[in-house]
C-alpha cells in the first residue's frame, strides 16, 4: 500500500489524536458518492475550510489492481483445491483427502482473516485520508500509523492538474494534483468524484487568485447545471463521452487544437523514426549481402521499444487542446487516460519555440516551457507537462504564445517573435559580430537577441531553429561568461537563469561590449519587473 503523500515524517507529521479518526471537526460527507452528488459539486462545497474525505472508492482505485490480483490468486487456488479434492476422491488417495479436510477450516479462516485485515486497512486509510482547502492553504493528511500532513500555500500554486486514468475514469473518479514549487512537492488528492474535482479546482483557483468573492451569477449557474440524476450508468457514460474541454470553461475562439493527422506525421518525422529508418537502411542490405538473418532478431527489441515509444507519444498527445481561461491557461490531452492542467498566470518561467529539421518543409513548430514545479504526472503515464504545444504551425504558435504570455504578446515583443522564428540578421535582433563566424559558421547571422521591457528574446540555430523567450519578471539571476577562446575573439556569453526545465536561455558569441551591456540591462530590469509583478494574485482588484 503506497501512500501518495510521501511527506517527510519529521516536523510536519501530525501525531495521532486519540483514537483513529475521532476528530470532532469531521464532517462525514465523502466526496461524490456516485457520479455527482449535488452537495459535492456545489461551488465552494469542498473549499469551505473544513476537512473532507476522498471518494469512497479510493482504496479500490488505488490498490485496485493488487486487490484484483489477490482475488484472482484466491479463486485460482480455491479451484485447484476443489479439483484436487475431486481427483483425490476419485483416485482414492485417503491420506491427501484427510490432510485436505484437516486443513480446510484453518485455511479458510486464515484467508478470510487476511481479507478482513485488508478491507479494514483500506477502510481506515480512507477514513484517515482527508483534505481541506482554506483561504491560505490546501492541506492533506493521511496515514494510519504514520501520519503525514502536507500543505500547499495557495499563492505559491504553480498549477492544478486533473488526471483521469482509464480505470478511475470509467468509475467517474479523477485525481487532482496541486503543484507547488519544488521537487516532488505536489499535493495530490486521489481520488475525487469527476465533477467534484472540476469544481474544486475552480474554487481553489478562485481562492488563489485573490479575488474577493466568486462571481455570483456564475456560481448559481454552476449550481443549476447539476442535472437531476437520470441513472448512474447513463451519467457515467455521458461523463466518459463528454468533450475533454468543458465548453463553458473557455471561449471557443481561444482554443488551439491539433489535428490527429498532423500529430501523426509530426511524430513520424521526429528522431526515433529517423533512427529506425537508418537501422533499416543499413540492416536490410547487410542481411541481404551477408545472409546473416540473426541480425534481424537483434533488432527486434529496439524495434518494439521504438514503436511503443511512438505509439505512446501519439496517444498521449491525442485530443490535445490549450485554452485560455480567466484563471490561466488550461492544457489538456489524452484519449483514454486524460489529463488537463491549469497554469495560473505568471507561472511560466521560460518558453522556447523550436523547429526540428524535418518539420521545416511543413512549417511546424513546438513550444516547451520551464515551470517551477516538477509534476509527478509523468510517472503515472501522462506526458511531461512542459510540452505546451506538441506541434503546430506559425498561426498556432502565435495563438499559444498569446495564451501563455498574454502580457508579452500585446507589446512590441510580438513582432520580435514573428521575425525571430525564421529570420536571420538585419531585422532588429542584435546579432553576433562577423568574427564569431568561427564559433557558429552557419548560424552566426541568425544568432541574436532582442531585449524589450517585458521579455528577453534569444534566437539561435540555422538548422535547428530555436527562439527562447524569458519573461523578465521571472528571471532568477543572470550570468556573463567568457572562455579563453571567447577572450581571443572578444565575444562573451550571457545566460539568463530560470527555474530548471527543458528550456535554457543562453546566448553565446556576442560582442563583449554588447554582452556586458545586455548583462547590465537584464540584471537591472529583472529587478524592476520582478518588483512590479503581481501575477501571483492575478484576480485581486487593486
Amino acid at each position, binding site marked *: 500500500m503506497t501512500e501518495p503523500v510521501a511527506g517527510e515524517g519529521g516536523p510536519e507529521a501530525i501525531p495521532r489524536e486519540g483514537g483513529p479518526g475521532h476528530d470532532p471537526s469531521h464532517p462525514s460527507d465523502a466526496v461524490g458518492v456516485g457520479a455527482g452528488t449535488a452537495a459535492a459539486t456545489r461551488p465552494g462545497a469542498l473549499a469551505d475550510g473544513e476537512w473532507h474525505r476522498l471518494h469512497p472508492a479510493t482504496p479500490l482505485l488505488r490498490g485496485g489492481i493488487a486487490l484484483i490480483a489477490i482475488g484472482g490468486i484466491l479463486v485460482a487456488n480455491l479451484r485447484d483445491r476443489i479439483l484436487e479434492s475431486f481427483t483425490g476422491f476419485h483416485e482414492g488417495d485417503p491420506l491427501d483427502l484427510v490432510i485436505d479436510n484437516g486443513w480446510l477450516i484453518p485455511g479458510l479462516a486464515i484467508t478470510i482473516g487476511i481479507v478482513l485485515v485488508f478491507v479494514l486497512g483500506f477502510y481506515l486509510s480512507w477514513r484517515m485520508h482527508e483534505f481541506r482547502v482554506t483561504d491560505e492553504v490546501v492541506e492533506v493528511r493521511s496515514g494510519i500509523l504514520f501520519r503525514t500532513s502536507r500543505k500547499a500555500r495557495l*499563492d*505559491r500554486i*504553480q498549477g492544478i492538474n486533473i488526471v483521469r486514468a482509464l480505470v478511475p475514469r470509467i468509475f467517474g473518479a479523477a485525481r487532482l494534483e496541486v503543484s507547488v*514549487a519544488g521537487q516532488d512537492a505536489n499535493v495530490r488528492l486521489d481520488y475525487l468524484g469527476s465533477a467534484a474535482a472540476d469544481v474544486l479546482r475552480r474554487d481553489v483557483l478562485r481562492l488563489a487568485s485573490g479575488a474577493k468573492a466568486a462571481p455570483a451569477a456564475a456560481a448559481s449557474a454552476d449550481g443549476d447545471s447539476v442535472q437531476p440524476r437520470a441513472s448512474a450508468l447513463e451519467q457515467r457514460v455521458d461523463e466518459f463521452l463528454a468533450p475533454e474541454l468543458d465548453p463553458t470553461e473557455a471561449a471557443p475562439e481561444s482554443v488551439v487544437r491539433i489535428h490527429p493527422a498532423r500529430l501523426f506525421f509530426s511524430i513520424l518525422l521526429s528522431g526515433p523514426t529517423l533512427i529506425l529508418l537508418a537501422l533499416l537502411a543499413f540492416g536490410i542490405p547487410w542481411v541481404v549481402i551477408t545472409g546473416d538473418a540473426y541480425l534481424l532478431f537483434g533488432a527486434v527489441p529496439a524495434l518494439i521499444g521504438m514503436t511503443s515509444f511512438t505509439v505512446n507519444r501519439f496517444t498521449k498527445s491525442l485530443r490535445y487542446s490549450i485554452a485560455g481561461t480567466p484563471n490561466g491557461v488550461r492544457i489538456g490531452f489524452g484519449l483514454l487516460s486524460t489529463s488537463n492542467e491549469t497554469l495560473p498566470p*505568471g507561472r511560466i*518561467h521560460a518558453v522556447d519555440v523550436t523547429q526540428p529539421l524535418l518539420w521545416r518543409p511543413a512549417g511546424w513548430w513546438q513550444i516547451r516551457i520551464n515551470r*517551477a514545479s516538477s509534476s509527478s504526472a509523468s510517472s503515472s503515464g501522462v506526458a511531461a507537462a512542459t510540452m505546451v504545444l506538441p506541434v503546430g504551425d506559425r498561426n498556432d504558435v502565435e495563438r499559444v504564445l498569446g495564451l501563455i504570455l498574454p502580457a508579452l504578446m500585446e507589446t512590441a515583443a510580438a513582432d520580435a517573435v514573428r521575425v525571430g522564428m525564421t529570420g536571420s540578421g538585419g531585422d532588429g535582433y542584435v546579432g553576433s559580430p562577423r568574427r564569431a563566424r568561427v564559433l557558429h559558421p552557419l548560424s552566426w547571422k541568425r544568432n541574436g537577441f532582442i531585449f524589450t521591457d517585458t521579455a528577453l528574446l534569444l534566437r539561435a540555430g540555422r538548422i535547428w531553429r530555436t527562439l527562447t523567450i524569458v519573461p523578465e519578471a*521571472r*528571471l*532568477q*539571476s*543572470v*550570468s*556573463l*561568461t*567568457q*572562455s*579563453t*577562446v571567447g*577572450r*581571443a*575573439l*572578444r565575444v*562573451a556569453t550571457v*545566460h539568463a*537563469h*530560470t*527555474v*530548471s526545465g527543458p528550456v535554457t536561455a543562453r546566448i553565446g558569441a556576442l560582442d*563583449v561590449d554588447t*554582452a*556586458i551591456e545586455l*548583462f*547590465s540591462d537584464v*540584471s*537591472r530590469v*529583472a*529587478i524592476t519587473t*520582478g*518588483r512590479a*509583478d503581481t*501575477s*501571483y494574485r492575478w484576480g485581486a482588484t487593486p
Partner: protein
Amino acid sequence: MSGPATSDNGQVSARIELPDVEWRKVSPKLIIVDIIGSAVSALLALAASLAAFFFGLGIPALVLAVFFVMSVVTVLLVPRRVRAYGYQLREDDLVFRRGLLFQRVVSVPYGRMQLVDINRGPIARLVGLSDLKLVTAAASTGVAIPGLLEDDANQLRDRLVDLAESRRVGL
C-alpha cells in the same frame, strides 16, 4: 591556445569588466587553503602514477602522470585564481565574479535569494575562512563566494537575509 588579446600576461586588463563596480576581494588566506587542496590531489596522482609505472601498467601511469602535471599547473595558478574572485553588494543585487580561463560574472537580485548557506571545510576552518553560498530557484545560478573571514561571512549572511526579506518577490 590563448589568442592575441591575452598575449600581454595582463589577466586583469583582459578581464570582462562591468562598469562602475568596485570588486571586494576575498581573503588571501584562501591561497593557502586552495594550494593545500590541489597539492594533495597532485601528490596522490603522482604516487598512483609511480605505483602504476612500478607495476608495469604503462597507460594508466601515463594518464595519472598527465593528471599530476595538470594538478601542478592548477597549484601554480591558485594565487591568480584567488585574486580573480570578487563580489559586491549593489543597491538591488549581488554581483559575483570568478575564473581566469573561464570567467564568469553573475548578478543575483536580493529578492530572488531563497537561502544563504555557510560552509567551512577542514582546512579553511584552520585558517578561519568560510564559504558563502547563495541559492535561488534556478539551479544554474551557482554563486559560492569562498574565502570569507568567519565574521565577514556571518555579517554578510545576515545582511543578505535582511535584504532578501525586505525585497521579497514571488518566484
